[in-house]
Structures are given as C-alpha cells and as structure tokens.
C-alpha cells in the first residue's frame, strides 16, 4: 500500500513537471501591456479586436510605473497603454518605444469611492477625516499615476497630512479598488473607469484638483509585429473603441 502511494507520488511529480502545455504558436499573438484602469474597458475591446483581425491578444495589466520598468528591461510587450503620458515620453527618450507611434487615447477621471458597508456615501474629500472612515485606499503615489493624482487632490483640499495615518496604498488602481470593494477600506480614491461595481458608491472629484491624467500609448521598439500594435491603437482610438472607452467614463482625445 505504502509502496504504491510512493510510486503514485513520484509519478505525480513527474507528470506535474511534464504537464505544462506548450504555447500555441499557430495564432498570431499581440501582447498588450496596459495600465490597470483599463481592466474593464479592455475586457470589451480586446475580444472585438481579436474578431476583426483574427489575432490573439495577451493582456497584461499592472501599475504604469512597474510595466514601464519591465518593458524597459525587455518585457515582450508589443504595445503599451500607460495611465500617464510622461511614462511614454520617458520611454521614447530612452529609445524603448517608437516615438512616431505615440498617441493620446484618454484622460482618466478620479472618483471618491465609499464602500456601501461603511454607511452613507461621502461627497467631499474633507469628509474622509470623519472617524467612521478608518482606512482610505489610494494607489501608490510613487509609481501609479492615479495615486499621484490622489495625493495632489488631497493636498489641494488640505487634508493630506491629517489623512496620512489612514492611508493604505494599492499596488495599482485595480488593487486599490479591491480594498474598497471588499470593505477593507471604508473609502478610497479610484478610477472612474473601474468604479461601476455593486459594493461601492462614488462621486467625481473636481478635475482642477490634480494634474490631468492624460493617458498615452506607443508601440514598443522591440516588437516583432509593430503593425499589429499600431492596429490596436487605431482600434481603441477608432469609432468602436471610443464608444466603449466613453462608456467607462474616460474623456477622449478632442474632448479635453
């Protein structure tokens, strides 16, 4: 009996090692690296683009700062949608992305979100000081554009220093949303494009309180198929893409 268990265990280890499916190479693949605020909008855009062009899109979402670093060090991205254009300009200056392919594709909006479990919806940033709000989630200002905007807005209304002990940092804006969505943080400053979920209420934060979240994109120089990256950019900035982006609350080029 024990000998059999032993043999089974050994076989299972070997099987585990061998069982990684080989990457399907038949279909052309495009690797799209994107800021986390695009999660919901791109969930709709990607399948449409795949159908139109007959390619497969691998979507990698993360904080703009981390993705930029990874692309700089050779991550296999074909096209990079940043949440802040300064990252794209910086990569262009370093020769990592193709400058001629740079394009604005959206302006992000910041909202003040309240977990429904935390009671009445907050409508003003100053209310974050209330004792019932014990944790305020923002994206990490050091490398996430929405975090930077959140810090600017909180400073602009003069509550930054007072709120500091309450702040919890998400690694990117999707992670930040999760803190509020789960009720772990009673409130947070998140992206409008992700805010439409069942467990939170939100109000827009005045755009004048922070530097504009102008989001731009570019094709990565190392890409083996730059024309597909370019096609994806054109799709997002085309009629179908714009309609979807608008529905998720992004301001579009030409509107700001």
């Amino acid at each position: 009996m024990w000998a059999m268990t032993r043999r089974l265990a050994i076989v299972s280890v070997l099987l585990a090692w061998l069982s990684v499916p080989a990457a399907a190479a038949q279909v052309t693949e495009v690797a799209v690296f994107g800021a986390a605020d695009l999660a919901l909008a791109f969930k709709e855009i990607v399948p449409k683009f795949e159908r139109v062009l007959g390619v497969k899109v691998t979507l990698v979402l993360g904080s703009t700062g981390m993705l930029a670093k990874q692309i700089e060090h050779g991550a296999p991205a074909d096209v990079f949608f940043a949440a802040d254009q300064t990252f794209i300009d910086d990569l262009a200056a370093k020769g990592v992305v193709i400058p001629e392919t740079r394009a604005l594709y959206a302006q992000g909006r910041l909202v003040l979100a309240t977990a429904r479990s935390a009671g009445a919806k907050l409508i003003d940033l100053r209310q974050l000081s209330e004792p019932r709000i014990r944790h305020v989630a923002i994206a990490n200002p050091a490398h996430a554009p929405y975090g930077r905007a959140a810090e600017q807005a909180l400073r602009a209304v003069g509550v930054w220093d007072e709120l500091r002990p309450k702040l919890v940092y998400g690694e990117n804006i999707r992670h930040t949303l999760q803190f509020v969505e789960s009720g772990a943080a009673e409130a947070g400053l998140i992206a409008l494009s992700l805010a439409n979920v069942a467990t939170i209420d939100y109000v827009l934060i005045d755009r004048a309180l922070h530097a504009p979240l102008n989001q731009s994109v570019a094709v990565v120089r190392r890409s083996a198929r730059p024309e597909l990256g370019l096609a994806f950019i054109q799709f997002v900035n085309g009629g179908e893409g714009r309609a979807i982006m608008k529905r998720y609350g992004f301001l579009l080029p030409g509107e700001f």
Partner: protein
Amino acid sequence: MDLFPVALSARVSLTATALAMLTGIPLAWALARRAFPGRRVLDALVLSPLVLPPTVLGYYLLVVIGSRGPVGRLLDALGVSLAFTWRAAVIAAWLGSIPLLIKAAQAGFEGVDVRLEQAARTLGRTEWSVFWSVTLPLAWRSIMAGVVLAFCRAFGDFGITLMVAGSIPGRTQTLPLAIYDHVQANEMPQANVLSLVAVIMVVLLLIGVGRLARLRY
C-alpha cells in the same frame, strides 16, 4: 477555468528545487568543510535573498538578466531570452529558496563527525568517495529538510517572479500571481478555487518530493 498557472507552478517549483539542490549542496559543503578566503562573507551573503524584500531582489535580477543588463545582452546576442519567460520564473524561485537549502545542508554537513570521514580515508577511500559514501548519507536528513523548505519557498514565490518574469497570462503567470490577479479583479470564486488547488497540489508534490529525495539513501 484556466489551469495553466497550476501546471506552470508545478514545473517552475520542481525545476527550481532541482537547481537549488545542484548548486546549494556543494556550496553548503564548502561552507561547512573548507576554509577559503571570503568564507565568512559568502556565509552571510547566501542569506541575503531571505533578508532583502523580494521585489527589490526581483528588480536587481531584472537589471542583470533583462535586455539591458550584462547577462541579458550576452544571452540576447546568442538568441536566448531569459527575462519574462518561464525560465526567469525558475531563476526567481531558485534565488528565493536557495538560502533555506544551504543553511539546512550546511548544518547537516557540520554535524557529520569528522572522525568517521578520517576513518574512511585511512581505509583508502578518495575524497570523492568519502563525500558520497560517508558525508552525504550522514547529512542527508538535514539536506532533505532544506530541500522541502526550499520547495515550499519556490512554490510560493511572488515578488521576485512578478518583477523578473512578469505576470503574463498563459506564459509566466504562476499560481500565486494568478490568485493575486483574480483577487484584484474581484473574481473571488476563481481565486478560491485556485487557492484550494494550490493546497492540494502542494501536499501531493511535497509527498512526491520527499519520496523522490529518499530514493538514493
């Protein structure tokens, strides 16, 4: 539901553990049995992956093996890419786990009675033969404890892997990264299933690793 991360994690952690045995056991033996210049520094240095935050470690690794780093450029010229492939995940898991193996194995080697080795030498055994037939078998239990710890650490690695292999679905997204991704997307059912799968798999693999490792002695 996509089970690719499950298979990838199994493969990465097993490969990393094997690699950690190949590199860690000789190093542990040298640290325990040989006097050489810089031994104390090396002794402290092998622990550094446990002390440094994983993301920092991952970033250092990325700088070295990324397309701009010295190793990365060399490999690029040879047509091999390391960063952001499953091999990078193996290196990440190996780096994070090797201190655990080295420290346990080192203690094991230090615990072997030198007189037994000397007795073997007086009977005409070569150094090589003494190592294989006396030192290694006597230290084996400690080494195995280190191997199991290393495997656990390799399986669970998050920070180093995220930095140097990315979290590319279907390519480098290991089980811990996939669970994190599902939690972020508030896809709790998937996160729960994967977490459960992780527990079952680790138990199975730990039994397997333990058995495999006992084959020789």
